[in-house]
């Protein structure tokens, strides 16, 4: 089965995570993605072990999983000859992707005007930090941008520290938005023959990520949407997290009398059913602190799995709140390709990494290889794509343009 992006060549001149994860989608879907890296050190994510920012296994899963299905070319873009190589590759490519600060692009000869003059059909894509229109050029790592959007400040119980959404949670969203922008631009090119520039910034994506609460805040200006909320002071105690004997569970029932009766039946609490405070939806809303305390005490008596089985049998949506061990064993996660197995050269065995985000019935993507060695495809690409000969490649090596 042909993959949907076969025949599309992408120059992925990105580092760390937001840009690489954007290009990962294109690679998973069959595009020829060439990770363009600096000679010697390459993408900074190759050195992630030394900086103690993320946990790293014996093999560098941070870099190798995110850059799967890609080739690597090492070229020094600060040298004129390196820039010329890239320009010639641009001529033969469909997409150029960049995430290393917009302000450095003109000096490197990699601005849109230059590259689109070389290849008018080029999709010129950036994953910027703060957008292309505002001239904001400060550093843009995942957590500091998350902090700016306001999304962290509303999470957690009142008085607790703000909560980070998890390593790269904003980066990957920016990457996914970038992929959507690139696919839209490709489809436009399919129909018109014209390329264009697209940008999906980390800040813009993360503002959108906050939509369920940021949108009502923008409209109303009411502080409540931006503040931490106590799980005890809720308008609906039936839609909440409860601690069972072993772990927590999530219950998602509407605050209706019908759901209340079902809940009482499931949890076997006749006393609670006779409590007049909780007899109506308004009562349950107004007495939420008391009801949450009652339910906490009840749920503490059995395991989360037991409760969830009873609740689901009664028709109430519920799930145990699992640690990562749970999702690693989740049948749906494996059956739907959300995990992939792929060979790891360092270990000489298969490893499991996160799989495909989107299922396609007739032309599905796949995970074939882990990320490339630095510059492993440099010579072959210069031969095959640009038609250079050994003499020229030798010169470029001597000049330090390629390793």
């Amino acid at each position: 089965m042909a993959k949907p992006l076969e025949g599309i060549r992408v120059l992925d001149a990105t580092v760390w995570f937001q840009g690489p994860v954007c290009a990962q989608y294109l690679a998973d879907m069959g595009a020829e993605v060439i990770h363009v890296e600096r000679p010697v050190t390459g993408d900074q994510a190759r050195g992630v072990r030394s900086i103690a920012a993320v946990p790293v296994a014996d093999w560098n899963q941070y870099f190798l999983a995110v850059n799967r299905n890609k080739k690597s070319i090492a070229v020094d873009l600060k040298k004129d000859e390196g820039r010329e190589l890239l320009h010639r590759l641009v001529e033969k490519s469909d997409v150029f992707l960049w995430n290393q600060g917009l302000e450095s692009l003109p000096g490197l000869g990699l601005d849109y005007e230059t590259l689109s003059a070389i290849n008018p059909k080029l999709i010129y894509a950036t994953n910027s930090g703060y957008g292309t229109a505002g001239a904001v050029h400060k550093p843009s790592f995942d957590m500091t941008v998350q902090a700016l959007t306001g999304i962290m400040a509303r999470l957690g119980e009142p008085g607790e520290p703000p909560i980070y959404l998890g390593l790269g949670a904003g980066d990957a969203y920016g990457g996914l938005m970038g992929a959507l922008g690139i696919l839209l631009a490709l489809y436009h090119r399919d129909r018109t023959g014209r390329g264009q520039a697209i940008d999906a910034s980390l800040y813009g994506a993360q503002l959108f990520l906050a939509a369920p609460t940021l949108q009502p805040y923008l409209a109303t200006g009411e502080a409540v949407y931006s503040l931490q909320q106590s799980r005890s002071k809720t308008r609906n105690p039936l839609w909440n997290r409860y601690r069972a004997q072993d772990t927590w569970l999530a219950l998602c029932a509407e605050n209706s009398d019908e759901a209340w009766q079902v809940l009482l039946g499931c949890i076997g609490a006749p006393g609670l059913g006779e409590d007049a405070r909780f007899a109506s939806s308004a009562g349950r809303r107004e007495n939420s602190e008391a009801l949450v305390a009652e339910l906490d005490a009840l749920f503490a008596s059995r395991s989360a799995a037991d409760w969830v089985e009873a609740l689901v049998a009664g028709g109430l949506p519920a799930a145990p709140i699992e640690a990562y061990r749970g999702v690693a064993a989740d049948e749906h996660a494996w059956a739907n390709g959300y995990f992939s197995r792929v060979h790891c050269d360092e270990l000489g065995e298969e490893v499991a990494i996160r799989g495909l985000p989107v299922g396609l019935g007739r032309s599905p993507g796949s995970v074939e290889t882990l990320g490339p060695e630095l510059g492993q495809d440099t010579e072959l690409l210069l031969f095959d794509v640009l038609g250079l000969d050994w003499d020229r490649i030798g010169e470029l090596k001597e000049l330090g343009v390629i390793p």
Partner: protein
Amino acid sequence: MSQVLEGIVVVDLSREYWASLAAALLGDFGARVIRVEDLSTVARDPGRDGIYPVDALGSEARLIHRNKESVALALADDAGRDLLGQLVSCADVLLTDAAPASLKAWGLSDEDLLTARPEFIYAVGSLAGPEGPASTQPPLDELAAARSGVMYSLPEPGQPPVNAGAGQMYTSVMLALGIVTALHHRHETGEGQRVDASLLGGHMYASTLTLDAYMAMREDRLGEPRRRFDAANPMSGISYPSQDGRWVTLTMPDTDRWWPAFSKIVGLNEDDERFDTHEKRCGDARLAMMEVLEGIFATRPAAEWRASFDAQNLSADIIERYDYPAVDPNARKNRYVIELDDPKLGKIKSLGFPIHMSDTPAQLHRPAPAVGEDSEAILKTLLGLTAEEVGELVGRSTVGIPGSVS
């Protein structure tokens, strides 16, 4: 062509926030999105989870149903289902989060549609994907968050699990992305297909880095709730309270690069023997340095810290609340936040567009419709019904128009 998806017709048969939003993303880029509201079921209550009051200004719909037309049909009636089938046969794409059983009952099984029209794109958003054990659970964000490991891992130890809500927002984009990928494939080959995205897949994508680390090492500690000072690096992935009770946050993982400027700002000697190498900062002196920084950040208000960070171009900032992006000129310039003219409310802010396209930008063609606002027009122009026929269907409550539906 002024917009990418001009001429593409999408039938939006969704119920949940995230699925409806996926259809709006297609509308933002020019698709004609016909939203079908089922009069036979109770509409989703946006405030059902009880966490926040329902926004009285209806801003949710302004986002997730913008750029759509609305047709209201009673899908429990044969005649309503027949109209839905006719609408789908005029469309390029069906986008739905309905259960397989419901789709079958409506005459919209994937097999039938894709056999009859191989070029059709049948896009489904679900709780956990089409394969695997059948489940009767509805596609709710919290249920997938609970399964994904992320909800468990986010709080401080001893605190209740936290659903950040990221997974459903990922799933919206994934569903739209899958559809546009399928449109490209259709352009190349002529063939349509089924597209799937799920909340479980969305939450897993949102936690890629932690999940990949867990899968590589299989150590439970990687997904356990962490204290602030469990951070591996005192200058990265950590927050400290400032004098005025706000928080500053630092992400300077390669500390050697930042240390000369950072040490100056916080009043430490660059040559301070306790902290003068990356190895010390992230090794034996890690905790001691966090305690020292905790004391230092408590001495000045957050705004002063930001001024210092900005002056040195450090990767550090304040943990803001939503009042920041609401007035941030950069958010406006990039159209991440837009201002609308509402006929009743006047100027009102809304989220804008997270993707910039130079030649075919996202546009707001029309505000979110009232339920059934376009029923009459669409049945007449697209399906060729006469005014009398539509009137009769409205009279029988098979079709809803504003005023006839609550």
